[in-house]
């Protein structure tokens, strides 16, 4: 077992892990941060996306020891301390960008990474950016819409509610 220390959502976190312990396992099992999900075993679904040192990564495809010393951000740290949703979270609720909620943490974290690099993405930008995030419920329509709305763009002309 190796001790790892990292900052998770601004707080110091540490624990003992095996070499094979994945970052997602450390978050879910050691830190009880179960908002980050595992939806596949081939690094494709994106339910596990978190930020490590400000970059979106798949926490199921990174060892916990590789995150030693890193700044990690997860879905649990996205809302304000008083519980107020951040702009992206609020846009997901406003535009019905989630149904079962399982892919949602990864979607929100990917969206945050996208908007950091590309503050006014086009529809095509958003769709391509989500290549590594699979949703089975929404058909993506309202996710794309929510992300564009979160970027401050007018989505009123996009079809339907």
């Amino acid at each position: 077992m190796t001790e790892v220390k990292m900052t998770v959502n601004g707080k110091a976190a540490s624990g003992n892990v095996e070499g094979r312990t994945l970052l997602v396992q450390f978050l879910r099992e050691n830190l009880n941060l179960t908002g980050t999900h595992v939806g596949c075993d081939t690094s494709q679904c994106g339910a596990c996306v978190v930020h490590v040192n400000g970059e979106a990564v798949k926490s199921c495809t990174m060892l916990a020891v590789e995150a030693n010393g890193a700044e990690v951000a997860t879905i649990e740290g996205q809302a304000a301390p008083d519980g107020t949703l951040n702009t992206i979270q609020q846009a997901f609720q406003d535009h019905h960008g989630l149904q079962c909620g399982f892919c949602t943490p990864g979607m929100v974290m990917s969206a945050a990474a996208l908007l950091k690099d590309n503050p006014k993405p086009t529809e095509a930008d958003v769709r391509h950016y989500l290549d590594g995030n699979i949703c089975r419920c929404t058909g993506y329509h309202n996710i794309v819409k929510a992300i564009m709305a979160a970027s401050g763009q007018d989505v009123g002309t996009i079809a339907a509610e």
Partner: protein
Amino acid sequence: MPKDHGIGASSKRREDIRFLTGEGNYTDDINVNGQAYVYFLRSDVAHGTLNGVDTSAADGMPGVVRIFTGADFEAVGSIPCGWQVTDKHGEVMQEPRHPVLAHGKVRHVGEPIAAVVAETLEQARDAAEAIVLDISELPAVINMKDAVKAGAPKVHDDLTSNLCYDWGFVEENKGAVDQAFKDAAHVTTLELVNNRLVANPMEPRVAVGDYSRGTGDHTLFTTSQNPHVIRLLMGAFVLGIPEHKLRVVAPDVGGGFGTKIFHYQEEAFVTFAAKACNRAVKWTSSRSEAFMSDAHGRDHVTKIELALDKDNNFTALRTDTYANMGAYLSTFAPSVPTWLHGTLMAGNYKTPLIYVNVKAVFTNTVPVDAYRGAGRPEATYQLERLVDKAAHELKVDPIKLRRQNFITQFPYATPVAVEYDTGNYVATMDKLEEMADIAGFKKRREASEAKGKLRGFGVNCYIEACGIAPSNLVGQLGARAGLFESCTVRVNATGGLVVMTGSHSHGQGHETSFAQVVADMIGIPEDMVEIVHGDTANTPMGMGTYGSRSLAVGGSAMVRATEKIIAKAKKIASHLLEASEGDVELKDGAFTVAGTDKSVAWGDVTLAAYVPHNYPLEEIEPGLEETAFYDPSNFTYPSGAYACEVELDPETGQVTIERFSAADDFGNIVNPMIVTGQVHGGLAQGIGQALLENCAYDSDGQLLSASYMDYAMPRASDLPFYDVDHSCQTPCTHNPLGVKGCGEAGAIGSPPAVVNAVLDAMRSGGSKVDHVDMPVSPHRVWEAMQG
């Protein structure tokens, strides 16, 4: 002006807050103190004699608690099938035993053979690798038509053949149908495959079994759409645990789409093992396991024929379908190609004579059962591809041919045993034509052609049947369950309500939309109503969520229970108001004596119910809590018309969806935002089936599409913004809300529109091909275009 609360308002979903902040409570988030983990050793061959399972090297390995094999389950019941179909000769279907762990034989890749319970999952897996299996491989039967040939290897040695049943519907019509084909002016014939799919909810299945020796109580936490059904099937038929000693909890569930309806071996295993090991046992499916253990969907091979008279009126329809059951009968498998499929073959058309033949076949593949739409997508796809082909052969406009044959009078009794209570197929088609901008298509095609691309346009109609019912009828048809729904409404002293529903929400937003209904009925804010679901310990016996039934059936039970609440509250109010009950009315959360300004607020009435100081105790009991069970008198029949426009790259065969328009009639609508979202999701799954998804086996029974590396899940970049409308509304005539159901429509209605559009595009490029099977992948399109 859209409503801002209650029925008809696009209320924002309250459940979103927990999902958006990582506070959802999914089954894998549940850990019981002291729990052990199970790893299932699964068959890697499709068919074989299981001569022995040697666990001796594994038994003493680090962390191993206990290893189970099929022998441990000999005294345990078979995983039951919930529907018994009677064939065209009046014989009941062949029904094999379905063991928790394989015994004697393995029958599909992925079938669990042994289960290792250990301190950690990795230890369980290490030990599983040390188990030595002695399997004599047998030839596998994969192709359905081969499976029913004389001399084919049998999946189940104790059955007479691989034919589960040979169903004819309506058998008495067969002679007249055959005659109509002889008399026809034109016959259109089509052979097609409805491709096998894997439902793939993003949350893989999870089951945690717990047991208390102190009380003898079992608890199962599981990813289910219907915890009561699991409690009944598993408790009564598999493990012999009475319901009062078994609690089944389906907490937040990350999507279901049908595949989480069924009772699976893993649930029975963890429940059994928790008692045997005297500690909680947890199983979390990996996605790779899900591909070979979640029930698959669709997988029909069909020949369908349409007879038309000289004026292009449909005179008869005849189908011959092979439906894959897989190796065992999953919970509702036999009903899918029969009562959920044959009964829908009339579609939106007044075809007077219909005969449907379905042969259900056992093969060495994962069991096949209901997947979003369940039987109805198969019916719609056959019919709507066939009508398009007929239009092409007859050189008539496909929309015109459809309109000419539409059912226009309701109620309408079809020749396949169902009665459509209401609908307006002309209105949805009118709406669709407007949405799809057909007039502008020519210009769009020219623009595509200028880029070296082809462009195609396709439409289809659909009808579906939701809220399968009534129980006494489905019982005659072979259902081994009632198909009612239940609800308990508990009003607290200070006026808030807890609504305990037998429906389950796993993405549908019931916690919001159900609250809208109750709040609207009473005239109170939605946040005074809490919806509770998913736990057999605190909800009445319910049948769960599938078949777009929740609002139509579960919502109706909720309305009935709320009506009882209101009736009792009115009695209390009339006492408080010293008025006759008939003069008291409930409006905007207050009881008022008609024509006066005398009123008493909702909260004062509810308080009186629990503080019955001034209360007619001799007439009514204190308290305010009511339960209702609702058993519908008929299905509901949502319908609609869909249009798809594609661009096709003739050099690569790549198809892109450029436009998709959907005009649906769902009857009345409670939350338009949620309904639209349901349609979006259904469309993505239907478009996924049409263009991308394919669960394929090789001839040895190895699963070729066993992960997301080979099973193409639709991604954001595969799909467009959809244009969805549900302004055409013919309310259901027989449920109190006038609602029909919207969850499956998109998946039912979209595949034929996509394929029709692709074929239109191919033809515009000179191709003579008249059919390509789904998924119409670039490879298949390119090959078809080579001639």
